[in-house]
C-alpha cells in the first residue's frame, strides 16, 4: 500500500512538473569520473546521475545507485566540471539596423530617440536570435551558460542569463532580467556628448528615478490632494535598481571608469558589479575599500587612455603580452571577488586561450574555475541552482579528458539542462577562408560635429594589419592593426592643427564594408567604410 501511494505521488509529481521543464532528455549516469566543483571537495572516482535536466544524484562511485533506465557514460580518466558561466557577453545580439539613410547633405545627426538608445527599460531578451555556431563554439570550451547584455547606449538595458541548451530562446532563459547595464559612453550629437556629461546624466537619472518612486509611493498611499505622477517608462524601469537595489552592472573600460563607477555606486547606494575592468589591478586599493565584485573581461588590450598605450607600440605590445594578462592574478592576490568573462573578445577560442594565458600569468587554476562557475552564479543570484555539481541543481556539466584549462585538455561532452552535446573538433582551416582587408577603403566618421570623409589604405599579413589613414588634414599611420575573425582593431595618432590624439578603431568587417566605433579621448564616434574598387 505504501509503495502504491509513493508511486502515485511520483506519478502526480511527474504530471504536474514535467511538462513545465524546459529540456527533458534521457537519463544519464556518468560513472568512474573525477568530479571537480570548487568549493566542494574533489571526488576522485564518482558518479553523476542526470535526470530531467537536473542533477539527480552525485557521489562516490559505489555509493550511488545507478537507475536502470540510465544511459551509462563511462568516464574513466575523465573529469567532470560544472558548466562554465560566461558572465558578460553580447551573444546573439542582432545589431539594431542603422537608421535609414539620411537625406543627402544632412549630416546633422537625428534626434536622440532615433539613434543610440539609452533605454533602461529595454530587455535584451527581446532582441536575441540564437546562432548554432556560437553555441557550438562555446560548448567547445565548456561554456554552458552566458549572460547576454545589450551593448549600445549609456543605459543599455537589462540582461538575461541563458543556458546554451538548444535552438529556442525561450528554453534557454535561466533568469530574466538579471541586471541593469550602464556604460560610460556618450551620445552622438546630442546631450550628453562628453564623458563628464554622461556622469551628470547618470546622476540626474538616478535622482529622477528616486523622486519618481517617492512621488508614486506617496500618491499610492494618499492619493487625495496630490497630483498623480506623469507616467514615465524610463524612470519606472530604473526604480528596481535605484530604490530596490537590484544589481547594476557598470562596464568599465579603464581605471578611471572603475573609479567613476565606484563614486556613483557610493553616491546612490547601488548594488553594483563592475564589468570589463581589464586594468582593475591598478585601482586595487579603491576596489578593496569599495568591496565591489567584478566581472573581469579577459581582454588584454591596454585601454587607449592607458599610459601603456601612449608611449609607443613596443610598450603597448609588451603590456598586452605581459602586464594585462596578470590582471586576474593580481586581483586574486588582493583578495577581490571576481568572475571571468569574454567581453570584448571576438570569439570563444580567444576566450579559452586568454584563460590559459591568465593562468600562466599567475592565476591559480582553481580560482579561474571558481571565477567561471560558482562566483558568477553567486554574483548573478543563481547559485542555489547553478554553479556547482550538487544534487538538485541544473545539470550543466562538462566532461573533459585532462584538465579543463590545460591546453592539452580535451572537452568531450557537455550537458546543458541535462541535454547532452558531443563535442566535435572545431572545423579546421578557418584561417585560409578568413577575410582580407587589404586594399583601399572610403571611410566616413560620424562625430558630433558632423561627418568626415577619409580614405584608408590597408595591407595585411596574417592577422596583422597596417597602412595609412589619409584625410585633408594629413596622412596618419595605422598602428597595432589586428584582424581577428571579423573584428578589425587599430589605432591612429591623429594630428590636427598642432594637437595630437589617439583614436582607437574597432569595427566589424564584411566583405566589402566595415563599420564600428572610434574611441577618441573623451568620446566615441562611429565609422563606416566601403571598399574602393581597384582601378585596372
Amino acid at each position, binding site marked *: 500500500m505504501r509503495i502504491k501511494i509513493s508511486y502515485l505521488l511520483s506519478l502526480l509529481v511527474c504530471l504536474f512538473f514535467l511538462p513545465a521543464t524546459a529540456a527533458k532528455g534521457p537519463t544519464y549516469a556518468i560513472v568512474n569520473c573525477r568530479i571537480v566543483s570548487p568549493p566542494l571537495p574533489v571526488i576522485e572516482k564518482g558518479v553523476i546521475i542526470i535526470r530531467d535536466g537536473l542533477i539527480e544524484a552525485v557521489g562516490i562511485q559505489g555509493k550511488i545507485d545507478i537507475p536502470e533506465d540510465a544511459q551509462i557514460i563511462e568516464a574513466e580518466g575523465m573529469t567532470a566540471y560544472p558548466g562554465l558561466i560566461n558572465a558578460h557577453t553580447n551573444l546573439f545580439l542582432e545589431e539594431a539596423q542603422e537608421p535609414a539613410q539620411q537625406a543627402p547633405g544632412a549630416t546633422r545627426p537625428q534626434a536622440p530617440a532615433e539613434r543610440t538608445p539609452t533605454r533602461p527599460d529595454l530587455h535584451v531578451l527581446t532582441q536575441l536570435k540564437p546562432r548554432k555556431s556560437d553555441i557550438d563554439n562555446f560548448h567547445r570550451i565548456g561554456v554552458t551558460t552566458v549572460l547576454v547584455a545589450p551593448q549600445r547606449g549609456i543605459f543599455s538595458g537589462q540582461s538575461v542569463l541563458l543556458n546554451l541548451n538548444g535552438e529556442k530562446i525561450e528554453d534557454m532563459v535561466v533568469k530574466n532580467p538579471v541586471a541593469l547595464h550602464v556604460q560610460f559612453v556618450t551620445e552622438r550629437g546630442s546631450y550628453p556628448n562628453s564623458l563628464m556629461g554622461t556622469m*551628470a546624466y547618470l546622476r540626474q537619472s538616478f535622482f529622477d528615478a528616486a523622486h519618481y518612486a517617492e512621488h508614486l509611493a*506617496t500618491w499610492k*498611499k494618499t492619493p487625495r490632494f*496630490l497630483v498623480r505622477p506623469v507616467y514615465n517608462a524610463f524612470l519606472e524601469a530604473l526604480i528596481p535598481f535605484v530604490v530596490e537595489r537590484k544589481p547594476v552592472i557598470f562596464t568599465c573600460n579603464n581605471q578611471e571608469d572603475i573609479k567613476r563607477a565606484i563614486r556613483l555606486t557610493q553616491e546612490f547606494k547601488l548594488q553594483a558589479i563592475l564589468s570589463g575592468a581589464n586594468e582593475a589591478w591598478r585601482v586595487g586599493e579603491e576596489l578593496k575599500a569599495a568591496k565591489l565584485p567584478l566581472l573581469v573581461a579577459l581582454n588584454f588590450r591596454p585601454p587607449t587612455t592607458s599610459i601603456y598605450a601612449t608611449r609607443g607600440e613596443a610598450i603597448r605590445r609588451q603590456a598586452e603580452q605581459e602586464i594585462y594578462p596578470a590582471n586576474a592574478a593580481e586581483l586574486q592576490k588582493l583578495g577581490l571577488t571576481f568572475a571571468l568573462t569574454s567581453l570584448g573578445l571576438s570569439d570563444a577560442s580567444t576566450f579559452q586561450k586568454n584563460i590559459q594565458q591568465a593562468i600562466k600569468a599567475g592565476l591559480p587554476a582553481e580560482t579561474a574555475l571558481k571565477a567561471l562557475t560558482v562566483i558568477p552564479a553567486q554574483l548573478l543570484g543563481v547559485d542555489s541552482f547553478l554553479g556547482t555539481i550538487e544534487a538538485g541543481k541544473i545539470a550543466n556539466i562538462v566532461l573533459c579528458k585532462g584538465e579543463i584549462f590545460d591546453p592539452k585538455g580535451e572537452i568531450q561532452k557537455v550537458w546543458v539542462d541535462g541535454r547532452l552535446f558531443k563535442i566535435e573538433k572545431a572545423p579546421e582551416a578557418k584561417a585560409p577562408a578568413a577575410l582580407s582587408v587589404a586594399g583601399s577603403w572610403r571611410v566616413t566618421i560620424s562625430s558630433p560635429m558632423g561627418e568626415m570623409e577619409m580614405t584608408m589604405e590597408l595591407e595585411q599579413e596574417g592577422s596583422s594589419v597596417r597602412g595609412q589613414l589619409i584625410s585633408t588634414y594629413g596622412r596618419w599611420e595605422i598602428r597595432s592593426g589586428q584582424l581577428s575573425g571579423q573584428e578589425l582593431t587599430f589605432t591612429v595618432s591623429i594630428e590636427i592643427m598642432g*594637437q595630437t590624439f589617439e583614436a582607437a578603431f574597432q569595427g566589424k568587417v564584411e566583405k566589402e564594408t566595415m563599420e564600428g566605433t572610434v574611441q577618441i579621448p573623451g568620446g566615441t564616434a562611429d565609422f563606416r567604410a566601403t571598399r574602393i574598387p581597384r582601378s585596372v
Partner: protein
Amino acid sequence: MKRTLIFISLLIASTALLFAGGNLLLKNGTILTVTRGVIPRGDILIMDGLIKQIGENITPPPGVKVIDVSGKYIIPGIIDSHTHIALAGTNETGSANTAEVNMRDVLDAEDTSIFTAISGGVTTIHALHGSANPIGGQNITLKLKWGKKAEEMIFQQTWPTLKFALGENVTQANRQLSPGEERRYPASRMGVVAFIRRELERARNYLAEWDRYQELKKMKLLNRPLLPPRKDLQLEVLADLLRGKLVARCHSYRADETLEFIKLSHEFGFRIACFEHIPEAYKIARELAAEKIGISVFMDSWAYKVEAAEGIATMPAFCTQQGVLVSLNSDSNERIRRLFNDAAKAIKYGGLSEDEALKLITLNPAIQLGVDKWVGSIEVGKHGDLAVFNEHPLSAYTRCDLTIIEGEVYFDREAYLKERQEAQKASPKPKATGGDQ
C-alpha cells in the same frame, strides 16, 4: 588621560596622512621669493611637504635629502590658472547650459601634457571646462604630481569655480553650419546675456521652491501629502553660485560684453573671480580694478579671430599698473612649459618689475584661485612647491631643471635625460614603416 593621548596621536597620524609630503633641503640657490625679495645664496628646507625654513647654511635634519643647486635660481612653482590638460574631455556641447558637469569626473592622471607642464616648472593648474557654452561646467585645480593617482592631484583648498563664456565661441559665430542645421540659441551677444539671465532666474526660482518646501515641511499642516521638489543638478550648481559657494570664471573677449556680465553679477549677487583671455581688458582696467576682478590672459597672442582683434602687447603690464590682478595663462598643452618666457615679456612690453612679472605666473594666479595662503611665493608655512632654473627664470636662455611639489621632485631634467638615453639604448629606434617612400 591615556585616552586623550591616544586621541591626539591618532589626530596627528591622520593629519600626517592627509598631508604626507616630502622632506627636502635645497642648498645654495638664488631664491626669488616673489614676496620677500631675493636671497642671493640661500637654502630652503621642506618638511612634510611644507616650507619649514628659508635661510643660509641650514643643516639638514637626519634623513632629509639634500640637493645642491649652486648657481641656480629657485622660484615658487608656476601656476597656470587656465588650462584644459589632465582631462578626458573639454566641452559638453549638448546644451547651452551645462553647469551640472564637473571636470572632477573626467580627470586623466596619465595625460602626458602633465609631464610637459612640469618640465616648464608648472606645479599647479586650474583645469577648466571649455568655452562652448554660455554656462559651462565646474572646474578643478590640480597639483601636477606626475605618476600619482588623479585623486592625489586634487588641490582641495581652492575655491570651487564655474565656467562661463561669452562671445564668438558660444554664439558659434565661426562655425560652418551644415545644410538644414539650425543655429543654436543664443546666437548673438545680446542673446548670451539674456540666456544667462534666464538661467540664473531659473536658479532663483529653484531656490525659492526649495525654501517653500522647507517652510511647508516645518509647518506640518493639513494632512496633505508633501513632496520635495525635483532635485535638478544643473540648478543646484547655479543655486550654489547664487549662494556664494561657487565663484565664476568667465571667458570673455570684448570690453562691452564683459561689463554686461559684471552687471549681471550685481543683479544676481554672485562673485566673478576672473575674466579669461580678455584682450580688451586695457579698455576697462579701472572698472576691473574697482570690482576686484582678476584677469587671466595670454601675454601676446591676439588677432586670431575678430573679437581678438584689438589686443595689445602691453595689456598685462598696463592692467597690472592700473591695479588689476593679472595672471598669464597658456590655455595650451605646449605653451604651458614656457610661461616664464611669457612673464619676461611683460618686462619688455610695459616695464613691470621682476617681482611683478614673476607674480603673473605665481602669486597672482594663486590669489585668483583662492590658494595664495598655500602657494604662489616662497614663504615659511607654504607648500614646498618650487621650480629650479639654470639661469634667471626671466632670461631668454633659461630652462627649468627641477620641479618640486610638496617637497617631492616630480621633474629632474638630468635624471630624465639619462633615463631616456638608456631607454634608447635598450630599444633602438624602430624601423620606419609606412610613409610615402
